[in-house]
């Protein structure tokens, strides 16, 4: 279990306990948090669970694989240095306190 903070583009903040092993994306979708679409259900294939990791982040993140890197090149909102796909970040206990920001649009 880790507490993840989701900040939507309009400023709404939602804090959710996400069980270890679930992805950052599922943590949002399962709690009905708007701003993460996850059209493909979590396969690194659609790029609609794009998030920006908080600039002051200190928690360790899973490594980025090629497919995620490629998809981030074509996301609907601009890719930044702190862009990730929520579905490619399985949550572990040591990610407690992670803060992610949702982009303006996913499509």
């Amino acid at each position, binding site marked *: 279990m880790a507490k993840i903070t989701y900040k939507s583009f309009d400023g709404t903040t939602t804090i959710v306990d996400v069980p270890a*092993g*679930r992805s950052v994306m*599922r943590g949002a*979708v*399962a*709690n*009905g948090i708007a701003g993460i679409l996850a*059209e*493909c*259900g979590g*396969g*690194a*294939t*659609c*790029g609609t669970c794009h998030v920006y990791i908080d600039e002051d982040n200190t928690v360790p993140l899973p490594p980025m694989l090629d*497919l995620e890197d*490629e*998809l981030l*090149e*074509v996301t*609907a909102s601009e890719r930044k240095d702190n862009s990730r796909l929520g579905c490619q970040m399985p949550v572990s206990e040591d990610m407690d306190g992670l803060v992610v920001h949702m982009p303006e*649009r996913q*499509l």
Partner: protein
Amino acid sequence: MDVGDVVVVGGGQAGFQVCVSLRDNGFTGKLTLVCGERVPPYQRPPLSKSFLYGDADLPFRPDDFYPQHRIDVVERSATGIDRIEHKVHLDDGRQLPYHRLVLATGAYPRLLNLPGSRLRGVTALRTLADAEILKGQLETSRRLVVIGGGFIGLEVAAAARKLDVPVTVIESLSRTMARAVSIQMSTHLTQEHGRQGTTVLVGRSVTAFDGDASGRVTKVVLDDGSRLEADLVVVGVGVAPDTELAAGAGLKVDNGVVVDEYLRTEDETIYAIGDCASYPSAHSGGQRVRLESVQNAVDHAHCAAANICGKPTRYTAVPWFWSDQYGIKLQIAGISTGCDQTVVAGDPEAGKFSVFCFRQGKLIAVESANKPADHVLARRLLAGDPDLTPQEVATPGFDLKARPKPPVG
């Protein structure tokens, strides 16, 4: 806004999503979701993939989501529609009044009517209950035969190989996924199945099953008279739309419940969405299509919800599909029916490439293997009027990402 009671029949992806989208659109009336499977809505795609060899997190939402959003989930089956009284009849005798009714009844697997097809161990895959049984049987299976080399068949074969179960796939057409993808993509998938130890027999069909004294399947008989040993058989020969309720209510049915571009049946109070709906598609030259996909279910749901909430919306979404087999992520944007020219771009040797499908020089579909960026860009291109030519794709070094990006949304 409020249009009175809405009843949704079918708790799959489309039925679930239309409930969520109705609330997102500000619908405040009574909302009932009839789930004939007797379980709250869950994701179906993992059932032929990760669920079979590992864990999958299936429910769309936690159980308390539904009361929180005043969605009354009724775990019963609908048995009829009274279009005059505007009521749905349930199998427990209850009647649900509606102002608007959404049919999201989905599809059911086609079965084989062959000698021995009722033997134990011969199974189809559609529901969570089917998948739980199959998963249990895969644990002890020593010889799986999959009938049908389409999406479900090949995905189940790939999942079984992860569990080290020997697998043979039997496809009656001349190649795998023949109705869904180009010959190039089909070849790529079939080769990967071969590398992973799956035997794929094409151009062969099944004529019967042999069983033992206990009534369990032991062999699959092929049309050339040969017999394959099997202790488990998965039949993946497609699905048929569940149109019984609609037909019983006198609604027009033609390979699915017939709806217009607003997804409305001829009865303006009744919509049909998802796998069960036959609709005119702008991406198929205005021809009627009936698609079986998550995208189709979700986008239909968005559209029907908007229409019910008084925001007239034509359905225009670009169809897309995906499959996971071993390490191959296959994605398809558009509908390739009528394709007369294909051009491959990318690196087929490395397993990262796309097949661009054209009809009379116009791009109609793109199939991608481990090229998700091509897929995302192709969807955007196909949403407009694609200006991509076969010649351009055939140019050495062509990269869709290097072109001016098509507009988003």
